């Protein structure tokens, strides 16, 4: 027992600083791998310039290796494309599939920045950047650049479920495409705001949209049927 204690004490500084990016990712993955599946309840707020929508009560289902589904419990499900990326497991499923670049630490936050370059030339993801808390082995922020769908950003805020690497709140940002319907289809009523909206729409082309999910509870490793993901 005392031998184990000495080994732990000696190895602790190496854990805290100077870890290789591969080792850091391995530790992060170890934490994430505690979760085989989960069912989470939460509130989803969508902030996209061309949509007004109520705050939705959502249920998020996850199952290893990369199954994820967001269900709106009532109302219209407005799920952004690329929402799969709200689960960090989906961002780096396998170390071997990436070249890993250690960029160092982010000024201010001290988060370790690691870039993942997919080895597969035909992969949809071009580059993923992870911002990792080295002490807690937690991914705090990710940026994923894709070929066709722009860049996704994910910020995670941890609380009750930190031991599993599951966030209490996430903010998912994504590029929005233009939205316009022909007036012949909509027969719009001009309530005096149309001009302003047109100018606003012209200004905000390709702007970022944002989805915030605040989780109230997780049910972890209790099994999620495959039928949920169909």
């Amino acid at each position: 027992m005392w031998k184990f204690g000495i080994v732990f004490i000696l190895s602790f500084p190496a854990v805290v600083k100077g870890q290789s990016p591969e080792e850091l990712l391995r530790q992060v993955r170890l934490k994430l791998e505690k979760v085989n599946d989960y069912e989470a309840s939460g509130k989803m707020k969508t902030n996209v310039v061309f949509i007004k929508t109520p705050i939705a009560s959502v249920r998020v289902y996850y199952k290893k290796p990369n199954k994820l589904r967001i269900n709106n419990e009532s109302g219209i499900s407005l799920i952004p494309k690329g929402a799969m990326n709200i689960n960090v497991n989906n961002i780096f499923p396998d170390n071997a599939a990436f070249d890993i670049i250690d960029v160092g630490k982010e000024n201010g936050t001290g988060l370790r920045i690691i870039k993942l370059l997919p080895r597969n030339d035909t992969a949809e993801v071009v580059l993923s950047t992870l911002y990792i808390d080295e002490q807690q082995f937690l991914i705090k922020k990710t940026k994923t650049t894709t070929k066709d769908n722009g860049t996704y950003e994910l910020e995670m805020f941890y609380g009750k479920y930190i031991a599993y690497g599951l966030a209490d709140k996430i903010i998912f940002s994504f590029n929005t495409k233009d939205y316009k319907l022909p007036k012949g289809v909509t027969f719009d009523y001009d309530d005096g705001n149309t001009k302003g909206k047109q100018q606003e729409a012209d200004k905000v082309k390709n702007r970022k949209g944002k989805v915030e999910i605040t989780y109230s509870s997780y049910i972890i490793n209790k099994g999620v049927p495959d039928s949920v993901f169909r």
Partner: protein
Amino acid sequence: MLRLLQLEIYKIFKRPRTYISFAVITLIILLIQIGLKFGGKEYVGMIMSGMSGTFEIPPGDILNGYFICFFCLTMLLIHVPILVALIAGDMVSGEANMGTLRILVSKPVSRTRLLLVKFTASVFYTLLLLLWMALLSLIVSMLVFGTNSLFVPRELEANIISESDVLWRYFAAFGFAAVAMIMVAAMAFMFSVFADNSIGPIVGTVCVIIVFTILTQMQIPFYDETIKPYLFTTHMLGWKGFFYVKGIEGTTVDGSVENISSIVKSALILVGYAALFLLIAVWYFRKKNILT
């Protein structure tokens, strides 16, 4: 007065053409409902094409009774004026054509009162037609398609309204539509006073509505600034304003209306037009020579 009104309403509903309007509305709404029941997902896909690059939205969520009703109203409220004109445009000219106007005017009732009673009867028909439309497009659609949040497609943005926040908007929208249709009835009624046969006022009303609707829908800046604000067809779309909601950082504010003052302004303009048409009709009818 009430007896006279009952008589006028009886005359309206004795005519077979009255029921054509109800049949047409029934047919159109049923066709829309059947079409969307079997091919609604494709239609919704087309509507959603503007957002498909950013969001994944299951068409089944959107296709519900409230959305079907919104679709029916968008399609119908442009064309219902024609059906209103069928009756209102015949109210006085029909009597003149049949030669019964002289008998009617010889009754011990003032011409103004007689005309107001006739107009009230056409308003009654108009409201009944709208009520029928509401029953079929809203109630039947809710029963057949169920209810959910309402998706409102607009040219530059989309609004999603919570299920619990929708129904009152329909009551308000039908109320506004009633004002708009009464205005059309007033116009057709006015034309009816000018003519001695029914075809002229009905066709005249329909032509005015077609021309004005085209001008309203055309996106030519010159007309946007000069003519459009004064066209009643621009304001007839005001019912839609009840489905345009306020938003704070993309989140809808329940119970809100984006620009209520604009809707009130449109309603007042429509009431103003209706009053003007009715006044002209009364003024003309009071001095109309019915002996020739």
